[in-house]
């Protein structure tokens, strides 16, 4: 029995309505408990800010990121954020580390932990390559992990929607989650992945997918219904059509509106729209490109059924990686950049292109502003998830920088004062003076994720929660984040302590231990009758079209050294 008593913590836990109050936290066997014995190890937090472990709900940290590493060996040596990037020799406690946007697996675990994060969700996992994602998960130390299964251009999905077979569709989704050990449904540019199989794309929600006679709108709505039929812990997680196109905010609004009629099966959203920064563009071309954030946030402010994440941009090098194959090809042609592509049979597309965002580019400057506008114009922090869509908007190691953008209008002004008049005229950020509190920040970085993903043991410090805790080197009442943003950034760059399941993993910014985290996956129960009918169709797919046999497709137990199976029962 291991016990720890954290004394004098300035706890900020939005779930309990505790806003930087001095209190003690008791830990026993990896959980937060009421009290501990006198034998407990005592740690004095000295009034420092204490939050539940951070939870990155949308990051590209296993699988496709390897293509990014492979084609950008130069990234391994980059060190723009000292302490959180670049090459680091092995030590007795840590493996060797490299990289910035595409760090090696060990660096991902250590660096997230240094930022006070303890859980990540890999945002895109095609079932056929899910084994690869889990192989990387195995080598990411400390963190708990989950992966979202890509289903938005899947043949079996589209055929069941076309043939109006909602029960079989749900059964297939349940099977795909089981086969890939996935946590939820990811939809990327619905239908666009299949169109990209022919070098084409879909232009909007009602542009039919070539050869499959379904529209992106149908894919979205039917997968949304299947998600609720299966009582999945997370909602559908959507990367909208037309990502990166001027004027795309209209598609984004249409997508959001589609889900007004979907009733969530749990106490959560029925739709999560991801990296909305890339999907909140107004204008008709790159000439008259401007922010669409006011229109999108107006809608979100009155909507009750959705959450979104920012996809904040960071100036400097980034690596874009997405299942949105046509977007990556377009990026590479526009920017004359190298281009990797990987279309996955019967399932989806994907691409990887490195790029660099510059404040001198008016488009990049406006993109930078849009992410922040969305986070600040949406009034309720319980709708906003903090992300950079790492490493698409920029690497997660820049999260401390983004924290200062949200907490300090002065800091934002320092950045945008360097923008051109042209850029400033296309954004509304300078008119926004809102500055987030620590409590609001805690919502966006850990609490909302607990709710969104249906993981009640995460993102909070209530009795019974996982003892994933971050203590930051700052005393809330002694700091004015609005002015002292540099101190805030420093504090958020390396925790004083990070605990993972009650184990001390980071102390004063140094890795103390690297236990193996858990992998969450969802096993949704489907009645035998429906499942066997669906299996017949699936057998045919494997017999005729897949190049891997069905039994070799399923991710085996060996790839989940520390699995947590979440079971749900479908409504059939």
């Amino acid at each position, binding site marked *: 029995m291991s016990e720890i008593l954290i004394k004098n913590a300035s706890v900020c836990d939005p779930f309990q309505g505790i806003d930087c109050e001095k209190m003690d936290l008791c830990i026993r066997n990896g959980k937060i408990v009421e009290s501990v014995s006198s034998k407990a190890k005592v740690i004095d937090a000295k009034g420092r800010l204490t939050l539940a472990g951070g939870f990155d709900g949308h990051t590209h940290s296993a699988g496709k990121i390897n293509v990014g590493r492979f084609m950008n060996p130069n990234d391994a040596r980059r060190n723009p954020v000292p302490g959180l990037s670049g090459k680091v020799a092995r030590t007795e406690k840590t493996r060797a580390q490299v990289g910035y946007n595409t760090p090696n697996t060990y660096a991902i675990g250590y660096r997230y932990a240094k930022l006070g994060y303890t859980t990540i969700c890999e945002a895109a996992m095609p079932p056929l390559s899910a084994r*690869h994602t889990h192989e990387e998960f195995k080598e990411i130390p400390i963190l708990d992990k989950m992966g979202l299964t890509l289903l938005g251009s899947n043949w079996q999905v589209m055929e069941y929607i076309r043939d109006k077979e909602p029960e079989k569709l749900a059964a297939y989704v349940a099977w795909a989650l089981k086969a890939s050990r996935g946590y939820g449904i990811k939809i990327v540019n619905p239908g666009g992945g299949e169109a990209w199989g022919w070098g084409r794309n879909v232009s909007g929600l009602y542009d039919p997918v070539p050869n499959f006679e379904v529209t992106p709108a149908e894919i979205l709505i039917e997968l949304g219904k299947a998600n609720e039929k299966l009582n999945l812990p997370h909602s559908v997680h959507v990367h909208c059509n037309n990502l990166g196109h001027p004027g795309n905010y209209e598609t984004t609004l249409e997508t959001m509106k589609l889900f007004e009629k979907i009733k969530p099966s749990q106490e959560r959203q029925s739709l999560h729209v991801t990296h909305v920064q890339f999907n909140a563009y107004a204008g008709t071309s790159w000439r008259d490109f401007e922010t669409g954030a006011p229109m999108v946030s107006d809608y979100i402010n009155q909507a009750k059924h959705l959450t979104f994440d920012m996809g904040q941009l960071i100036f400097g090098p980034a690596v874009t990686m997405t299942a949105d194959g046509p977007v990556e090809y377009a990026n*590479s042609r526009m920017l004359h950049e*190298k281009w*990797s592509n990987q279309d996955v*049979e019967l399932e989806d597309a994907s691409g990887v292109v490195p790029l660099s965002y510059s404040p001198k580019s008016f488009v990049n400057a406006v993109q930078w502003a849009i992410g922040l506008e969305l986070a600040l114009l949406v009034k309720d922090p319980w709708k906003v998830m903090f992300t950079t869509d790492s490493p698409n908007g920029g690497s997660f190691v820049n999260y401390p920088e983004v924290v200062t953008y949200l907490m300090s209008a002065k800091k934002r002004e320092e950045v945008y004062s360097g923008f051109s008049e042209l850029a400033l005229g296309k954004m509304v950020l300078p008119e926004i003076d809102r500055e987030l509190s620590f409590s609001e920040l805690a919502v966006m970085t850990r609490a909302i994720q607990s709710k969104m993903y249906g993981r009640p043991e995460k993102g909070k410090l209530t009795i019974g929660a996982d003892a994933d805790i971050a203590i930051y080197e700052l005393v809330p009442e002694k700091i004015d984040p609005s002015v002292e943003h540099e101190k805030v950034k420093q504090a958020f760059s390396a925790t004083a302590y990070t605990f993972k399941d009650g184990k001390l993993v980071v102390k004063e910014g140094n890795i103390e231990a690297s236990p193996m985290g858990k992998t969450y996956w969802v096993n949704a129960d489907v009645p035998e009758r429906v499942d066997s009918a669906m299996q017949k169709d699936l057998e045919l797919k494997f017999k*005729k079209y897949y190049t891997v046999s069905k039994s070799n497709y399923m991710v085996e137990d060996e790839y989940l050294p520390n699995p947590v199976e979440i079971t749900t029962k479908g409504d059939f």
Partner: protein
Amino acid sequence: MPVIKNAVCSLCGCLCDDITVTVDEENKITKIENACILGHSKFQGMFEHERIETPMIRKAGKLVSVSYEEALETAAKILVNSKRTLSYGWCSTSCEAISKAIQLAEETGSLIDSTANVCHGPSALAAQEKGSPGATLGEIKNRADLIIFWGCNPVHAHPRHLSRYSSFSKGFFVPRGRKERKMLVIDVRKTDTAKLADKYVEIEQGADLLLITALRSIINGHEEVIPEKVAGVSKEELLELAKLMKEAKFLCVFFGMGVTQSRSKYKNGDGVASLISDLNQHTKAVMIGMRGHYNVTGFGQVATWETGFPMAIDFAKGYPYYNPGETGANDVLVREEVDAAIIAAADPGAHFPQKALRQLAKIPLIQIDPYANPTTELADVVFPTAVVGIEAEGSAYRMDAISIRMKKLIETKFKTDEEIAKDLIEKVRELKRG
């Protein structure tokens, strides 16, 4: 007798996973269905070829049988006493073993490199220049109406490639298979693959880059700059080729060592990637490297996620350093820079240039392999090991970077590569602790 279905063939980069294997009471494979001649002889060879039966150490010039403990101790001492060790190979083994090999290299400050050093290494360099626009093999099976084999000869090197994944396979949009696909072969000699093609283009040796560049010029609308003959191919034929490519609905270029290891090396792969990108302005095009060893792709994958780099990784400074040309296996051997070597699941003795081999002969060499091969003649410590994919399970990556779990089909007395690498890590730690 147990019949194991959907076994994975651990021979080439096709990693066929539809093999049926029958095992008798005496732990022997008696029947192998669906495998090609190469795969068949790998399964069968288990019972026909002599194995290295016990660990061995070279004493007074001769390899003699020793206990596992003694071999382990001797090998670990070599690693601990070495200032600069080369760890090489690790391609005909599992990803799990590769992972341990990388950890061993990291802990001993070694260099680690794979067989890509003498194979598709230039393809990695090309991807670092221009990216790697690919697809899974099922995309080719289901969509491709034009298949190009460039500098490769799958009929002999990847015998089931044509029937499972490419020319002869049937797919969703290509239900009649070969009848609906065009097959084009570009090579310097009329191979057996070329004999099956609709069109064979014979080019001058080492002139691939010229041909690629000419095709790109035509596809990008600059046919007027093309001379009457390029790479031994007439302008007329080049125009015809470019037309064939542009008019295809979905094309794939499968490229082999004829592209990666001929003159212009990585620039050829760079050129093919650029050609694919240009073709996507007109149609759908992808490229896939014809990887040889069944898990050489896996080495690249594992090394990349664990160290940031796919090959030629130098841990001398404690962190991974990568500079192929400087840190590749042959680079450090030819420069006589390494003073010990550990070689697993590969045979440099048969494939490396003489100068590199002379250095390998001079230094203490640890070999981990199921069978004796020319490298054994140079080895000072030899660990016999289980054959992965037959006697041991584990992950491998197909040539299109799809991970597949190989099965254990029969029992074995031999330790796996992974276990040996793990034991070496432990032993080295023990010796370092003193």
